[in-house]
């Protein structure tokens, strides 16, 4: 313990020295404000899920490359599909020592719970770091080689016997499934599981017939030859999966993304906003982040400021329509 304590103290010292250096050297805009205490990094999901792992990965990049003088402290507020986190951020109005990692429940949760009183356009957008993608997956033991085979197989099995696994109802996987059903005129039995990792495992164990996993959730099995991606829900092919066609190529304009962004409470000082934009710009440009994006099939998608806020509002409206068409909201 003694040994560890010493190393840790040294590391903290180093990080502080490096951090101070960065602030002094970097441009005037970012030098004006810096955190006076550790920054709370709120995560809209529970420990261990995809969103949590990504947030901790970001924390790791900041720590490893010594990008900030004071640490980010991840706090999970996953209750109510992120309702707890959204409410918390609203109550922290004007507090520059809180930021939050978002996923698409950033739009859907306030839409599904109007009583929450959260308007995301009142929050301060910091940066969009990536857009995660979705693919249609089946087990590699099946004879389904293409989307055409897939549609035929689903129709042959009938809606009662074709099981599609995914995350909770009203969440991303169920939206993508609904889009797929609508486009090809098919019906599946949707079985919800706790997280994308569990969904992937259920497919490999053949308890379900297909999934719309993120590439990062299936990539381990895919490399081991246990699963097969049929098509990608993006306009262009992914670098990590050059042989997998997009739905657009197959004549159906299906695309859906999961945004990975960082936001802050509303009403924070402009120089605090500038500090965070600068910090996440460094995260975004880091080798670790860029490698992660390419190898896990995420799309780079740097956005900030007003452009990001406009994007959020536009996506919220798109999700409102999607949820209404599914009968999830009125």
């Amino acid at each position, binding site marked *: 313990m003694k040994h560890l304590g010493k190393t840790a103290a040294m590391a903290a010292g180093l990080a502080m020295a490096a951090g101070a250096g960065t602030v002094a050297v970097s441009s005037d805009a970012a030098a004006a404000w810096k955190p006076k205490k550790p920054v709370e990094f709120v995560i809209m999901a529970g420990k261990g899920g995809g969103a949590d792992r990504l947030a901790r990965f970001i924390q790791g990049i900041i720590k490893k490359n010594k990008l900030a003088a004071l640490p980010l402290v991840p706090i999970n507020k996953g209750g109510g599909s992120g309702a707890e986190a959204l409410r918390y951020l609203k109550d922290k109005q004007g507090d520059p020592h809180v930021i939050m990692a978002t996923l698409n429940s950033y739009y859907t949760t306030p839409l599904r719970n109007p009583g929450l009183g959260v308007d995301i356009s009142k929050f301060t957008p910091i940066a969009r770091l990536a857009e995660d993608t979705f693919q249609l997956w089946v087990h590699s033991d099946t004879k389904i080689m293409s989307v055409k085979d897939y549609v035929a197989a689903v129709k042959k099995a009938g809606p009662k016997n074709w099981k599609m696994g995914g995350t909770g109802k009203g969440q991303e996987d169920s939206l993508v499934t609904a889009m797929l059903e609508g486009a090809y005129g098919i019906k599946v039995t949707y079985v919800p599981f706790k997280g994308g990792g*569990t969904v992937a*495992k259920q497919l490999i164990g053949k308890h379900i017939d297909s999934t719309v996993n993120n590439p990062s959730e299936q990539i381990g099995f895919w490399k081991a030859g246990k699963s097969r991606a049929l098509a990608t829900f993006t306009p262009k092919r992914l670098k990590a999966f050059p042989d997998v066609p997009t739905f657009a190529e197959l004549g159906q304009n299906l695309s859906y993304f999961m945004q990975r962004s960082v936001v802050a409470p509303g009403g924070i000082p402009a120089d605090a906003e500038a500090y965070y934009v600068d910090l996440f710009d460094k995260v975004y440009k880091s080798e670790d982040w860029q490698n992660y994006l390419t190898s896990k099939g995420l799309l780079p998608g740097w956005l900030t400021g007003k452009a990001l806020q406009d994007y959020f509002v536009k996506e919220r409206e798109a999700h409102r329509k999607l949820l209404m068409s599914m009968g999830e909201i009125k």
Partner: protein
Amino acid sequence: MEILGLLLEGFAVALEPINLALIVAGCIAGLFIGAMPGLGSVNGVAILLPMTFLVPPTSAIIFLGSLYYGAMYGGAISSIMLGIPGASTAVATTFDGRPMALQGKADRALVAAATASFVGGTISVVLFTLFAPPLADFALAFGPPEEFALLMLAFATFIGLGGDDIPKTFFSIFIGLMFSAVGLDIVSGNPRLIFFDLPGFYHGINFLVLAIGIYGIGEILWTVETTRGEMVVSRAAVTIRGVVRALADLRHNIRSMLMGSFLGYFVGILPAAGATPGSLMAYGVARTMSKNPETYGKGNVDGVVAPESANNAASTGSMLPMLTLGIPGSPTTAILLGGMVIWGLEPGPMLFIEHKEFVWGLIASLYAANLFALLINIAFIPAFLMVLRMPFTVLAPVIFILCVVGGYAPTQDMHDVWLMLIFGVMGYLMRKLDYPLAPAVLAIVLGPLAEASVRQSLIMAHGSFGIFFERPISAIIMAIAIGLFAWPLIMVVRRLVGPARAD
């Protein structure tokens, strides 16, 4: 033979000076983190994860793996000494560990816990070494119906837990199930049982809040009432001879130890279960197998040995799906998985091929961590026993503060602290009215898992319960569970019918 060669290479990695130092540091850190109520291996691994960038990935996982192990040992300490579960995985250890301490047998309970942890840990690492790939396939064979059948088996073993009063046991289970349903419905995403519209209920009721409330706070209230503050604990002197005798006595508990180890390992490798359900199930099974089940909950050594061997075995077990499938078997391995991504390793089937030194270094380090954790734990026993020499007037406020910290730590929400105090009073009243508490704790841990798996199964089968009996693994487990459910009921009926016939 190939495995032996790989393992030896692993040992060469694990026994490098830096790694050896990290194993010892991890064990000690884990021991204390585990012993602190409310802080468990999840918190320890999450807090220390960012520090591991200072060393290579293999050293990092070795440190965190040792910490995970140490925490499993440490959790037993406050369960036994203070009656507050030190970590979620040590809840079942409270059931018999605390009564043993009150009877002046704290040293024996601690030695039993440490030894059982060692046995559980060692057996599971050996199983891991020999059968990792086939066991990974086995874990895949468990879909929602199989998971539900297994959970039913766990409930069945607990029916007998409340002693002979079956209706009171059922009542306790139902109370636990009701609390476990609070929060968000996993299928529809709609909020349920949000009492008084309090936002704190959205994240559900963390079972540690219930366990610390009824065992920690409830215990203080109970002790105050029964002793009027003059608690007399017969002092256990620690001598080397005493420890040796305690070790020798454990030969009577080998059966429970082996059962706990295998069961814990098996439950650990199933995704989403982990060490907490594993230890509770081992306790239930040990009691069901026992010739004198009525001695459980009153200081039976087997009641300490079974859950402690199981939680260590499960913690190793839960690393198996993490490494081979990239699926965490417990909340702690979920965080470790995040660490592996940061270190640039891809968990999953390819890890064993692409990063041999990492996998085998970790496995070898678990052998070493087990041994060190045992030695360190036993060396600290005299220090832990000092706690019992404190007068109750000092100890009670300390326990109270630890309970509040423990209630706050998992969710960092004051809501849960108030809830814990209410559960404390409730637990005290239930105890006074002779309701068993352990089944309620079991129900709140296993309830959400059971609910998810039964609903997923029924969605898959379009509402037909036949799915549980059509699949071979599920059918076998379900049949055993039904048998165990029926057994005490048959006994009750026989007792009711018996005298009538004698008339």
